[in-house]
């Protein structure tokens, strides 16, 4: 129990720190939302100043921070200038879509990486291992952006997949099954982009973790007891290699989140990515802060989940934790 409370405490401190930093950075960035308006000759200086006062942008930084925290506690997370709405509702609508993409991409990436890595490690130095190595190396050098653009071009040229967005026109009129298929079709390319970009790192780590365990005495002993090959690899080897892989899982959640920003923008997926990009360009300060914080929250959540899994999977960590 204390193990988790400590982890939770760390996480909260981290989020707090991130919020302060983001606030500071956005305040330090030159310009504000109203700069564009100032360029417009039709709006008077006074109106701009009045707007600024209304949104309290002329107050000192700590005061603004305090007011923002207050708003956070009320479930609003500040106010968006561009959309004229509380940030929280805005973010949440978009966050759902990002989560959909990222969760499915994570699960799919691991579902492919595990068997591929295990197969590669079990056939070390023979042709399957070399083939997988080559493939992952190729994917590794490809930048995410190029990958996403490439897939988009594929969609445009072949017409097999919808080119952007999340739903087709007339979505509301479709039946449940058709809605499902529609979203799935739209999701295919963004998910493919995310999976392909994260696969190399995952496969390599799985391969090396399993390869290390394969030489261990307990595995040879199990082989000596007649445990069939498949069980040996999945039940015994994988469990022993679980530690580094679970930590990697926590890390991969964060990596996918940041990767999803680029993919969403390129593929016009209505997630947090495009929103954040717009907000940064327009200096919509509270949206930026809110978006960064939410991403951090998911990142920390992923790592926390990894900690939980680690505790469950490795009895030695349990013993260590309770003996403190």
């Amino acid at each position, binding site marked *: 129990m204390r193990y988790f409370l400590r982890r939770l405490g760390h996480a909260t401190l981290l989020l707090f720190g991130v919020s302060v930093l983001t606030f500071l950075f956005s305040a330090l960035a030159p310009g504000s939302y109203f700069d564009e308006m100032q360029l417009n000759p039709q709006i008077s200086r006074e109106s701009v100043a009045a707007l600024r006062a209304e949104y309290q942008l002329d107050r000192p930084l700590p005061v603004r921070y305090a007011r923002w925290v207050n708003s956070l506690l009320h479930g609003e997370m500040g106010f968006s200038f561009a959309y004229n709405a509380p940030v929280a509702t805005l973010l949440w609508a978009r966050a759902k879509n990002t989560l959909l993409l990222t969760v499915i991409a994570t699960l799919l990436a691991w579902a492919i990486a595990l068997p591929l890595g295990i197969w590669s490690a079990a056939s070390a130095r023979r042709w399957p291992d070399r083939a997988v190595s080559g493939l992952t190396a190729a994917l590794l050098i490809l930048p995410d952006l190029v990958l996403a653009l490439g897939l988009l071009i594929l969609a445009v040229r072949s017409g097999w997949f919808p080119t952007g967005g999340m739903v087709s026109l007339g979505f509301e009129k479709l039946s449940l099954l058709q809605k499902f298929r529609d979203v799935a079709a739209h999701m295919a390319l963004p998910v493919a982009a995310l999976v392909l970009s994260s696969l190399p790192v995952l496969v390599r780590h799985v391969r090396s973790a399993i390869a290390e365990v394969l030489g261990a005495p307990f595995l040879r002993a199990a082989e*000596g007891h*007649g*445990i069939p090959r498949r069980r040996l690899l999945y039940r015994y080897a994988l469990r022993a290699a679980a530690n580094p892989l679970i930590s990697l899982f926590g890390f991969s959640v964060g990596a996918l989140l940041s990767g999803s920003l680029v993919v969403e923008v390129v593929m016009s997926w209505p997630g947090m990515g495009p929103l954040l990009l717009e907000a940064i360009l327009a200096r919509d300060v509270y949206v930026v802060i809110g978006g960064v914080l939410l991403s951090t929250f998911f990142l920390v959540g992923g790592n926390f989940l990894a900690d939980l899994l680690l505790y469950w999977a490795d009895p*030695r960590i349990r*013993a260590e934790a309770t003996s403190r």
Partner: protein
Amino acid sequence: MKPLLEVQSLHVAYRPAAGGECPALADVSFEVRAGETLGVLGESGSGKSTLAVALLRLLPANGRVSGGAVQFEGQDLLKTGRRELEKIRGGRIGLMFQDPSMALHPAIRAGQQVSGVIGAHHSMDRAALRKKTLEVLARLFPKDAERIADSYPHQLSGGQRQRVLLAQATACDPALLIADEPTASLDASTQQEILGLFGTLKAHIGLALIFITHKPEVLAQIADRVLVLYAGRVAEVGPAASVLSAPRHPYTKALLQCAPSQAGAQLAFRKSKLPVIAGEPPNLMRLLHGCRFEPRCAERMDVCNASEPAQIVAGEGHAVSCFKYGGGS
């Protein structure tokens, strides 16, 4: 009566990373009868651990069997298919590896590790599996089988882990058990317990045992017959009483003399120099012709340099590979 296991002229070689070939076992032949305990006496570099794994084809990637046959229950283990071999391993022949702290999976409970072995050879439902697991563990842990079953390896002592290994190896009532240094890391009384357990299992299920060790005094307690390995070859093989108290091969003689014994200590041989075998075991990568023990032998003759001695019978069921007993031309 036909022997349970018959090893014929086994040759095993390793290919070390630096290149070349290392003949770890050469022309090893012996047999084990049902219910009998064969002690294999050998030091580091004798090839004893290689023998243990070679019989079940568990050599590491850089090792291979380069000749010979292993006849067991009507088939040559070196030629059986993978599926058949998996059934024999753990099912008909059990294997106990050397180091109990490393031979058990660190993140799976002891009971589940034993169940895993049983489940791999018999299909049963979960309740039956659990029942059988507890039965197997109760043979070795008469008092707290349940507690042991639910424990993780790091919660068990060295002796307990060794017993779990033994449980795994004998879970399916095999006909033969190969134990590689099962008492090496244990202190004297735990060692006695484990030896006692071997005896119990022998009585219970008629287990034949190949007991590999470098300590002659342990074999004196448990072996029916003893095989002495030196530099990958069989130096001597015969009934335990005969090999251990009236050894024929010069290596065996020298080896048995250099163990400090309690009897010797009581007779005030204390603090006197022990008779040792001069030199080191040969480098198997750079073998010269002739008997492998010849450079260190106190009884060497000219012919020993020229060729490898063949096995000669030198007593009732007792064979030696030494020119002293014949075979020189």
